[in-house]
């Protein structure tokens, strides 16, 4: 009896507990609600342990066989880390008394988990859109005008990615007759031979993965979400995209180039960005680049590297966002120009932040090191010299924006005079656990390595020289920071907005539209008026026919109706006989 109960429980799609649980949340209030939000991921985590590698759940639907659940090593490791992130984020959000945030966070997490276990493209699409729609409420929950607008832009881009995915899936299905979500790119890893469906799917994944020029939704929206919302957001959307790339596009050569660009360009933006949460968003973008390179190289070692990097990244990036969130929560600002010297007031938060910073910079004995080394070794093994150099440069760049800038300008540096309370206990607890995981994985990576999709034959600490060179890279970079500060070459933090690709759709396009409108009104007034008149006429025509008093909407006289029906009959008969 119990065995069969466990079996039938194991058939439940992962993530469903979270989504269904989220539907209960609106009926609860206050503490109970927040506590259930913490309990849900724990229960779902326990359910995850019932899943066995290799099992699938099929559903006959829509005339096709859908694999709603497919458990393999790749989906399991993402499932595990998504749950870790969900538990930590929920713990961090324990003080939140906002039904919208709790519900959307749980639906968001649940759909991300569901997506990772989706065995076919249709199921993936459904979860894909669900993550987009549910997560936007975490941004809107800031309840400010600018968050509302940023959320709308975010939603349009995310849903657009889903539409591309759906179009790609349809084309792919027409071309191959298969809906299975498996390797989509050909054995040669070339995009030139890939079908249009596959390219569309890659574009959809690329948007969610913040490929260069498709990236700006991330830096635009994440800093505008709520304190806790950003912590949730940072873990799932982009890493779900990394997962889909690992699954569908391993060894796609174009991804190497894309990845390198991704690791490099955000560094420059991060240097001059003033909002520290936005710096973290740029840093997130740069880290994704490492994973994309790993996917592009496509060897077992490289894919392991990408997955391991995603795993540890979720934890330390969450930790960094948590620490900046705590600062924002206590001081009401996350701008570098207004912060500094907070280590007096928030020593524990500062310590956790430093652990996160050292992890992301990949100091030996911290979690970033054991993951990034895999990718770098794979790149070196493949003899991609320039790629390797690019990643090395990016590593030094990470040290700049995340390793130094984040902790330095908030907790150290020039004293802003702000004195506040230390972060609340539950936040400290969440950060403490995350920091502990960063160090534990860094010191003892074996458990992580055994979870990876392929066998790992790599010991990061066996090669002492490697640890040494890494330390050299990072400490010399730190030295350079000291040098620049002492020579006053380091740019001061000033309040500003820096232009990025979002300028295209926030300024340039509106300007073009306005300009065109202006041209229409002034230079070629006649043409403009004509176009306007045509449009107005067309609209009036539609309204005339369809409006409340339109011929199609109003009540006809009985005789009219009967006459009409008989006319239709004659018309039809005429058509039939004169054929």
């Amino acid at each position, binding site marked *: 009896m119990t065995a069969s109960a466990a079996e039938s429980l194991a058939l439940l799609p992962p993530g469903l507990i979270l989504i269904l649980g989220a539907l209960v949340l609106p009926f609860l209030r206050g503490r109970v609600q927040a506590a259930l939000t913490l309990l849900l991921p724990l229960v779902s985590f326990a359910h995850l342990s019932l899943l066995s590698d290799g099992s699938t759940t099929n559903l006959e639907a829509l005339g096709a066989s859908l694999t709603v659940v497919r458990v393999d090593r790749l989906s399991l490791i993402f499932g595990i880390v998504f749950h870790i992130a969900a538990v930590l984020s929920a713990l961090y959000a324990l003080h939140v008394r906002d039904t919208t945030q709790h519900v959307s966070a749980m639906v968001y997490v649940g759909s991300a988990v569901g997506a990772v276990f989706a065995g076919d493209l249709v199921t993936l699409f459904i979860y894909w859109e669900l993550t987009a729609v549910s997560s936007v409420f975490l941004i809107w929950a800031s309840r400010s005008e*600018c968050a509302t607008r940023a959320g709308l832009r975010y939603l349009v881009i995310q849903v657009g990615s889903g539409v591309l995915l759906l179009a790609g899936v349809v084309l792919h299905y027409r071309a191959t007759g298969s809906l299975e979500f498996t390797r989509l790119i050909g054995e040669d890893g070339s995009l030139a031979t890939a079908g249009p469906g596959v390219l569309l799917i890659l574009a959809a994944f690329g948007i969610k993965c913040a490929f260069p020029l498709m990236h700006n939704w991330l830096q635009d929206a994440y800093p505008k979400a709520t304190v806790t919302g950003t912590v949730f957001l940072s873990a799932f959307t982009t890493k779900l995209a990394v997962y889909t790339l690992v699954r569908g596009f391993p060894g796609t050569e174009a991804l190497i180039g894309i990845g390198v660009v991704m690791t490099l360009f955000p*560094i*420059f*933006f991060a*240097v*001059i960005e003033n909002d520290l949460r936005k710096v973290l968003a740029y840093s997130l973008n740069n880290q994704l680049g490492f994973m994309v390179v790993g996917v592009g190289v496509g060897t077992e070692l490289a894919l392991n590297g990408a997955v391991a990097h995603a795993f540890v990244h979720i934890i330390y990036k969450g930790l960094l966002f948590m620490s900046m969130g705590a600062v924002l929560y206590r001081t009401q600002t996350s701008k570098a120009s207004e912060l500094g*010297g907070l*280590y007096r007031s928030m*020593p524990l938060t*500062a*310590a956790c932040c*430093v652990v996160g*910073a*050292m992890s992301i910079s990949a100091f030996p004995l911290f979690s970033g090191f054991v993951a990034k080394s895999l990718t770098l070794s794979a790149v070196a093994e493949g003899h991609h*010299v320039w790629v*390797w150099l690019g990643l*090395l*440069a990016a590593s*030094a*760049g990470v*040290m*700049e924006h995340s390793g*130094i800038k984040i*902790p330095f300008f908030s*907790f*150290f*540096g*020039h*004293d802003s005079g702000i004195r506040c309370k230390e972060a609340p206990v539950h936040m400290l607890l969440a950060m403490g656990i995350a920091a502990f995981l960063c160090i534990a994985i860094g010191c003892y990576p074996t458990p992580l390595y055994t979870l990876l999709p392929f066998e790992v034959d790599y010991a990061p600490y066996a*090669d*002492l*020289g*490697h640890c*040494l*060179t*890494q*330390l*050299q*890279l*990072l*400490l*010399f*970079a*730190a*030295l*350079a*920071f*000291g*040098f*620049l500060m*002492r020579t006053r*070459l*380091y*740019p001061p933090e*000033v309040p*500003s*907005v*820096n*232009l*990025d690709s979002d300028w295209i759709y926030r300024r340039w396009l509106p300007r073009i539209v306005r300009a065109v409108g202006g041209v229409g009104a002034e230079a070629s007034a006649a043409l403009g008026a004509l176009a306007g008149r045509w449009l107005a006429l067309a609209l009036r025509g539609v309204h005339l026919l369809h409006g409340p008093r339109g011929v199609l909407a109003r009540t006809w006289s009985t005789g009219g109706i009967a006459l009409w029906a008989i006319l239709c009959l004659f018309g039809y008969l005429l058509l039939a006989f004169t054929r």
Partner: protein
Amino acid sequence: MNEGAKRGMFEEPRNVDRLFWGLAAVCGALVVLELIVGRHAEFPFEGWPGFYGVFGFAVFVTVVLIGKRLRRFLRREEDYYDR
């Protein structure tokens, strides 16, 4: 340098000096250590002693200086998009 700051008052110039030169000393020690321990290199240039250190230093400075230049083109007032 940040990790040292927890211990002492970061603002005091004497401590800052100490930190900086201490860091420089550690860096020097790392290069020496590298010569003693020895390591294998995948690419020939990578084997040069102190390569990583110089590379890290150079990249860092370059990134910051380029970033500074970029600011001239990219910087706008905070309410730029709201206007």
